[in-house]
């Protein structure tokens, strides 16, 4: 099993109408679609986490040199479309399966039932170790630390 982060940002996909201008039943259909998908992923034992973030209006950007007071910039920010809006973490058998789920997220219906086609980032989550004993063993056998591995191997 491999974990993937499926992240969605504020790029609108093919529909530019903000949700505040959708019809009520369109919003309901949109939210129901997410809920159904969520329930499916819970039932399949694949969902690890699902998080929706507040908007960039509430965001802050912090930078620090580690000594003096940190510099804090408040939102709202001009260019916010690439900010992460929310994400799911799924634990799945294959990358194909992660892509399949991402496609479902992207096809969420918008106004008039048209799939929004929002771009979904699919990112493999770093493992804590090689995936199996054979890889681990190969890695440990071949890996050398600070020491140079040059010279006569025999």
């Amino acid at each position, binding site marked *: *099993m491999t974990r993937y982060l499926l992240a969605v940002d504020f790029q609108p996909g093919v529909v530019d109408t903000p949700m505040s201008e959708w019809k009520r039943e369109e919003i309901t259909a949109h939210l129901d679609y997410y809920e159904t998908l969520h329930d499916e992923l*819970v039932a399949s*034992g694949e969902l*690890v986490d699902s998080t929706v973030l507040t908007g960039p209006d509430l965001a802050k950007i912090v930078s620090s040199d580690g000594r003096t007071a940190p510099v804090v910039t408040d939102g709202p920010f001009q260019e916010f479309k690439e900010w992460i809006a929310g994400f799911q973490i799924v*634990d799945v058998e294959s990358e194909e399966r992660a892509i399949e789920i991402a496609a479902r997220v992207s096809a969420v219906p918008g106004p008039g039932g048209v799939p929004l086609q929002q771009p979904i980032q699919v990112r493999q989550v770093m*493992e804590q170790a090689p995936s199996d004993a054979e890889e681990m063993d190969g890695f440990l056998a*071949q890996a050398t630390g600070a020491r140079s591995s040059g010279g006569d191997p*025999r």
Partner: protein
Amino acid sequence: MPTDVEDLLRELAPQVLGVLTRRYGDFDAAEDAVQEALLAAAVHWPAEGVPDRPRGWLIQTATRRLIDQRRSERSRMAREDRALLTQPPPADVPDRDDTLVVLFLCCHPALTPASAIALTLRAVGGLSTPEIARAFLVPEPTMAQRISRAKQRIKSSGVPFRLPTADEWTDRLRTVLHVLYLVFNEGYATTAGRDVHRADLCDEAVRLTRMVHRMLPDDPEVAGLLALMLLLDARRPARTGPSGELVPLPEQDRTRWDRALVAEGAAMLAAAIGRGAVGEYQLQASIAAVHDRAARAEDTDWPQILALYELLDRMTGNPVVTLNRAVAAAMVHGPEAGLTLLAHVEERLSGQHRLDAVRAHLLEMAGDTTAAAEHYAAAAALATNLPERHHLSRQVARLRNPPGE
């Protein structure tokens, strides 16, 4: 809970499940009932003492739970359930141990490896869902769903509760061994760091494989797998540095290896080899044994390791084996021999960091540090796990910024 009580419970868990499944036929419900009985025993036994006939106690308790479950589903109650309710819970049955049948059922080929692992740990290993969820770093409901779906799948596949037939035997046993191997992997691959829950998976895999070995003492691959686990596990104390970092094999302090485990694994392997067809696990164990025999890294018998990898490569056709073989070939015949072997797997392993990592290693051996650094950097960009990425980035830094220049 005292360890001896826990050991006893987990030994008895699959036996009790076997009795209930054989008697009532419903593996899914029986498994839930056994979990509840285990929980009850874990509460009562440490306080009140272990009953005289612990197995009988568990069977009785689990049967009562099964009846309770069915009572609560009264609307769906069929005639056979009514018959069940009128019978007194049986104390125990004559010695019959269905542990192996339960194990074969949990490692059913219809299941994905992930579900077979989860179900095996619960039904055969007697671990609770929260424990399994912790070991696999997923939320408890996620793991609960995985186990429940696995049980549903077994139910709908309609497989009978019996050992596989003679013509199914080899394939089915291979699946069982693969599942046990994967449980070991999960623990072994992550024993670095503070992740003790996952390290426990190694112990659990060894315990279950020992059990299978006790029941099938003449099978050379079962013995080979157990030997492999013991020989690899022997290095556990030396595999992790003080801050949880991985210590590569050539740099491990071999005095910290568990000599008793090495001896046990080597003896088991020696007894298994020559008893029948040499299989994959026996070969892997043989390679581990050659490493474990060397008192220092430079004493490693590389020609022997290379010969074993050649056999394993021919047997499995696994490109990862070819990578390891290339490293061994370089140690025996020089880096060019290793690089030549890599050409054979280039296509099948493209995009995987291990190919670049091994190539970098061999290029460095050949003295081409510039190309080596490039391939280490490419490998770091493709790495899917942290210890390797850190290691690979350090190699790039080492080659590009040699000390004292």
